[in-house]
């Protein structure tokens, strides 16, 4: 009996220590410039298992996500973002990945103006 109680208490402790939020909200900077970027960024984020919600704001370049921390972490998301060619603060996209974005989305050359309506 004692051991059971003890193990329950202990298990509670471990839960407390490693409490991982099922719905953790976070935001980080992602570079991009237009509606097409927005689709690409959100799509890439949502394709990461454990990302429930992703919304990228064009003017502020902020990506807001809600994630299940038991399944993913911010680094995994950033890895997915650079894979489709979008820079984040910590990770930069490879030249190859950056070249894969649509020509009008080349945010590195000119970060203010999106050119045509698309």
């Amino acid at each position, binding site marked *: 009996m004692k051991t059971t109680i003890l193990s329950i208490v202990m298990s509670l402790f471990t839960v407390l220590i490693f409490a991982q939020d099922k*719905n953790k*909200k976070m935001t980080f900077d992602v570079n991009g*410039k*237009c*509606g097409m970027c927005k*689709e690409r960024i*959100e*799509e890439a984020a*949502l394709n990461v298992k454990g*990302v*429930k*919600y*992703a*919304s990228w704001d*064009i*003017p*502020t370049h902020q990506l807001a996500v*809600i994630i299940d921390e038991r399944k993913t972490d911010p680094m995994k998301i950033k890895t997915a973002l650079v894979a489709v060619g979008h820079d984040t603060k910590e990770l930069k996209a490879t030249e190859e990945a950056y070249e894969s974005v649509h020509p009008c989305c080349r945010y590195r050359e000119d970060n*203010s*103006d*999106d050119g045509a*309506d698309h």
Partner: protein
Amino acid sequence: MKKIIIAFAFTILPWLAFSQEKVEGTVVEAGNANTLALPGANVYWMDSQIGVATNIDGKFSIPYKKEYNKLIISYVGYESDTLTVNAPKVVKHGLKPSNELDEVVVQQERDNIQKTYFSPQNTVTVNSAELLKAACCNLAESFETNPAIDVNLSDGLTGTKQIQMLGLTSPYLMITQENIPMVRGASQAYGLTFTPGTWIESIQITKGAGSVVNGYESISGQINTELVKPLTDSSVFINGYGNQNGRYELNTHFNKKLSEKWSTGLYIHGNKRTQKEDDNGDGFLDAPLADQINVMNRWQYQDAEKGWVSFFNVRFLNDEKQVGQVDFNPDTDRVDNNRRMFSQAEALASGEAELPILSEAEVWGSEINTRRFDTSLKLGYVFPELPFQSFGFQTAYSLHKQDSYFGYRTYDINHESIYTNLLFNSIIGDTRNKFKTGLTFAYDGYDEMVTATDYSREDRSVGAFFEYSYENLEKVSLTAGLRVDNHNRLGTFVTPRFHIRYTPWEKGSLRGSFGRGKRAANIFAENQQLFASGREIKILNSGGDLYGLDSEDAWNYGVSFLQGFNFLNRKGDFTVDYYITDFKNQVVVDWENSQEVLFYNLEGSSTAKSFQVEVNYELLPRLNIRTAYKNYDVTTDYQSGSLQKPLQAQHLFFANLEYETKAKDNGSQWKFDYTLHRVGEKRLPDTSSNPIAYQLAATSSPYNHMNAQITKVFSNTFEVYVGGENLSNVQQDNPVLGGDDPFGPNFDTTIIYAPIMGRMFYGGFRIKI
């Protein structure tokens, strides 16, 4: 300091004009004497991806292009503002801190009719600007400029406009107001005229199978109306309208923000027609004498932090109509059935004919008086931490009393209705996979008296629904819904509905849908115009639960393709769609014998096929054209054989041209609008059993119906409009058959295939404060 900046700005302005075109300026806090600059405010052109942020001194510089004229300035903690900028210039703008109660209306410049490229449902949104293109006095008249809906005159007497979609009349449409079912049961015939046009914020029109969320009744489509909201509507709005035929309207809105979270609005509508119009000289009024008072009070509660939003509405309506012969006096001339019976008995006693003998002096008239009380409550809760999860609860109660008589026939109906819907929205895994689920409870109590027969009944239903939607902005999205309902008369049944959208290439959207709808037909309420005739009304009882008839049951299938394009650097879109509604069971309204109206259940097949092509294009800057061709094939197996639906044009052509001048900074501009409906020939109900004098041709001839309107906007607060309807002055020459003996067997006001009113001009004004 300010002066210096401005002076400096003006000196550099000429150079700017020769260099790259830019709009420059400073963003500060409004009303702050020390001019607190706002660094990091967002400045961007509406509907573009061009945006900049202000620097440490609150200054910005943004490239100017002719295509953009609305500059949005937003900053966290401040009210966003939209400036109209038509030239490269220097602006200095103060933003109000958002904790101030003064409202800043952010106006969005959007297409008046928006088609969605991504939704799986074929939905078109009509915004209030579109509704200003014609004198939309009420919801029934709001579809004149929209090709998805056909507006027909329903009856010669009241001139009430009936709408049709996919070749089916409005009972087959689900009409909701803020997603609460509205125009149904007793209000089916006139309900659309009970929503004043100025109360409408936007309309969503969905073709084909609707969503399962709002119930099982929609068969051909769904029309949802969003009303103006106390928080976003003008604080004072006044609209006056008058037309040549003596119809006057007054609409006033008063909205007040009471606190951070509460706002309320009071909306009062009145319309009146006291002038007797008999333009065609047939001795019958061309339009009813009318009198309506319609008052609504709305309360809105919004708490963004905690995620609550709520609406509470109360409305009272009193509507009176009088129609019939011009010199009919309701106080002295009403012929009730007893008197008719009495004269019939006298006639029989003296060995005369069997038919009622009413003296020549009898005058035929009709009155329709409606009183209605509505109240509804909506509660919505969005989980603050989870923007994709929410609860919704809607409940509505209405009491509708109509007392009416048509000649010697009386028709009284009281309809008490309770509706509640509980809804939960969330996701499965991520936001691309959403679901909605919930429970619906509905009660309808009818007290219905047709002359001396009582048709009272009670309907109760409870249902559960689940709708899954997959949304992937790139290629595919779909919505699959299912509901199960138990209804005391319709039994237990399942309603599946499915929509899918596929984007094969850019700006293309291919959609498909199918779904089932089931409904209890209220045969008298929906076909009231038939009372205004000498026809005998017969129900061929098949032992069903509704007037001895079985309920209606139909499947709807449809495909549509939308392609947006850019031609000569101007935007346009092309849509083609095809829908089939296939009735498994229907209450057939058969008036192919001009002495009677028969109601019976379908034996055989009944289908409505509709094909539509639509092209919209911007011909020149601010000059838009919308054109559509529609083809309908609506066939039903009547007792007399398989026939096209009577009074349904098989070919229709629609065109709408709109032009507006560039708006000045104060909003002043001119707007011009022209609409053409080419209505093809219609099959007329068979009149061959009438004496020669009362016989009509087999088909009506095609005609053009044109409307136009000019609006002069003086400023953002005041505008005036004038317009004309039926400019080509098309008139049906014999809207009343047998009008010389209105109590006789050949009297008929139901066969209306063209306008009764000739050319008509109107004018009005709008004040928004």
